[in-house]
């Protein structure tokens, strides 16, 4: 047996086992994460875990656009900023509840995402990436210069922790942690359901071949806009979450480095996979925290990761293709079996 076939076999076994016991595995993981704060109640540790969770959300958002639809955005920090600023301003100045405020942030980001999506109907590839980069910078400049709204370069300080039914969610009482956990679960579920549908297939078709997708009757303009809007809204919520975690935002919180960091997570984990976002975020957020040395060189490290991944594993660490059969629903499977029974 040659090496490839053997590896394929191992891969098959691995995927088969994880798929068969997926419900148990998910349950175990969930339980582990639910009890985690009680085992490691260190504040610093929990803050990092929450930060990883936030970046998982951001990566999931960008992944819809870049991983599935193939539109590379270099300005997603802009959407994070919109979400963070909108919710912080509403909470700090207008006394909004955090959840209502972040919903407004998501809607604002969605509308702006739609506007940013418009060029994608005419411009593609690198040019589109540059437009998104310009967008990110324009958002940053707006945050710097529109002082009346954003308090300029001073930023917004003392962003209160979110409350629910009079109960304040912070790191100490684990409230923030559980909010992050629920958010990550909901966003993952949302992405999963979206991807495994007609919409997800259309997005992937656009990624592979726009013309062929058009010829299959896919309204590529509509789906590109959908991808932009969904992606923007997810990242905006991630931004709101980030702002309450750190408690302070200013225009430089959302610079180009953040956009590249989110992109690095998506690429490292595996574009167009959900599992990859977790691995990517854990590696890129947790590692620099481990040592001072890595902290100093973290952006150099992100750069090296991008270069090496493109060279040696462009599909990402977990970017493998499923080797299991295509999952058909139970009723279809029964009918196919019957059909095959009839043929035989």
């Amino acid at each position, binding site marked *: 047996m040659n090496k490839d076939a053997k590896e394929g076999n191992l891969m098959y076994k691995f995927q088969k086992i994880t798929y068969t016991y997926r419900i148990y595995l998910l349950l175990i993981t969930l339980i582990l994460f639910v009890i985690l704060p009680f085992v490691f109640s260190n504040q610093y540790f929990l803050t990092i875990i929450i930060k990883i969770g936030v970046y998982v959300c951001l990566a999931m958002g960008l992944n819809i656009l870049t991983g599935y639809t193939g539109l590379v955005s270099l300005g997603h920090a802009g959407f994070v900023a919109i979400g963070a600023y909108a919710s912080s301003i509403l909470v700090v100045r207008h006394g909004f509840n955090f959840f209502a405020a972040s919903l407004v942030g998501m809607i604002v980001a969605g509308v702006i995402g739609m506007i940013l999506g418009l060029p994608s109907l005419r411009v593609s590839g690198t040019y589109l990436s540059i437009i998104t980069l310009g967008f990110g910078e324009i958002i940053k400049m707006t945050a710097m210069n529109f002082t009346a709204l954003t308090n300029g370069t001073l930023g917004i300080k003392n962003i209160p922790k979110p409350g629910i039914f009079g109960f304040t969610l912070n790191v100490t009482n684990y409230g923030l942690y559980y909010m992050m956990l629920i958010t990550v679960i909901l966003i993952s579920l949302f992405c999963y359901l979206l991807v495994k549908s*007609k919409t997800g297939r259309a997005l*992937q078709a656009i990624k*592979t071949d726009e013309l*062929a*997708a058009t*010829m*299959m009757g896919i309204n590529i303009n509509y789906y590109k806009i959908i991808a932009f809007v969904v992606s923007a809204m997810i990242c905006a919520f991630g931004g709101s979450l980030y702002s309450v975690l750190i408690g302070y935002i200013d225009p430089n919180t959302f610079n180009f480095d953040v956009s590249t960091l989110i992109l690095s997570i998506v690429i490292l984990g595996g574009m167009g996979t959900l599992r990859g976002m977790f691995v990517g975020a854990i590696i890129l957020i947790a590692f620099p925290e481990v040592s001072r040395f890595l902290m100093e060189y973290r952006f150099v490290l992100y750069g090296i990761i991008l270069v090496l991944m493109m060279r040696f594993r462009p599909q990402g660490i977990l970017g493998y293709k499923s080797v299991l059969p295509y999952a058909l629903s139970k009723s279809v499977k029964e009918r196919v079996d019957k059909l095959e029974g009839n043929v035989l």
Partner: protein
Amino acid sequence: MKKEVMLKIEGIKKSFGGILALDGVSLELNEGEIVSIIGPNGAGKTTVFNILTGVYTLDEGSIIFKGEEIQNKAPIHIVKAGISRTFQNIRLFNDLRVIENVLIGAHLNTKYGFFSAIFRNGKFKEEEDREALRAIELLKAIGLDHRRDEYASNLPYGEQRKLEIARCLATGAKLILLDEPAAGMNPKESAELMEFIKKIRTMGYTVLMIEHDMSVVMNISDKIYVIDHGKPIANGLPEEIAVNEDVIKAYLGGVANA
């Protein structure tokens, strides 16, 4: 039996930067026929397809499909009207599975909205199940079902061609445009392809194809159109085209001494 005219192209002209790529090409196609367009390289055959499917707009002329003018409509409307195509260089969704390729073809027939997908309601299940079943039936009908779970890029060449055609059929289009389906195939494969195209016809589809392989063209076409340098030079039954002097001249260049 009088057959119904399905597609009527009349005097279409198209130029690119002053160069006339198509100069008054006309074509008529009845339901249930297999019609071929032949001509030397660069004659403008693929341009006809591109205009027909809305990739290019035409400068002059008209295209009537099932009694409706469809010239210069956007590709998506053309697919909805019932015309679907393959490409000269295969353009599959390589990273997706065979069945997913077919399901993408069935995009227009899968009728549920964004929120149905998120909430997985009854409508979603009903539509997805119906289309998945139809896709499997289609794959079985064309003999590709044993490849259902494979990734498109892993299929052998001949089967990729078949899959591309299956994807067209899944759109629900009744007129299938095939752009050089036999290109790169050996004689055995093209003989199989011929049978396959005949089979598609029996399934109720009409075929318009561009092809260089004369054994395929002469054997299965009901009618042949010949174009050269964007101009129509002949049309008729295969046996008429085989002895047409203009056609021989266009292909061999010199003066025909037939």
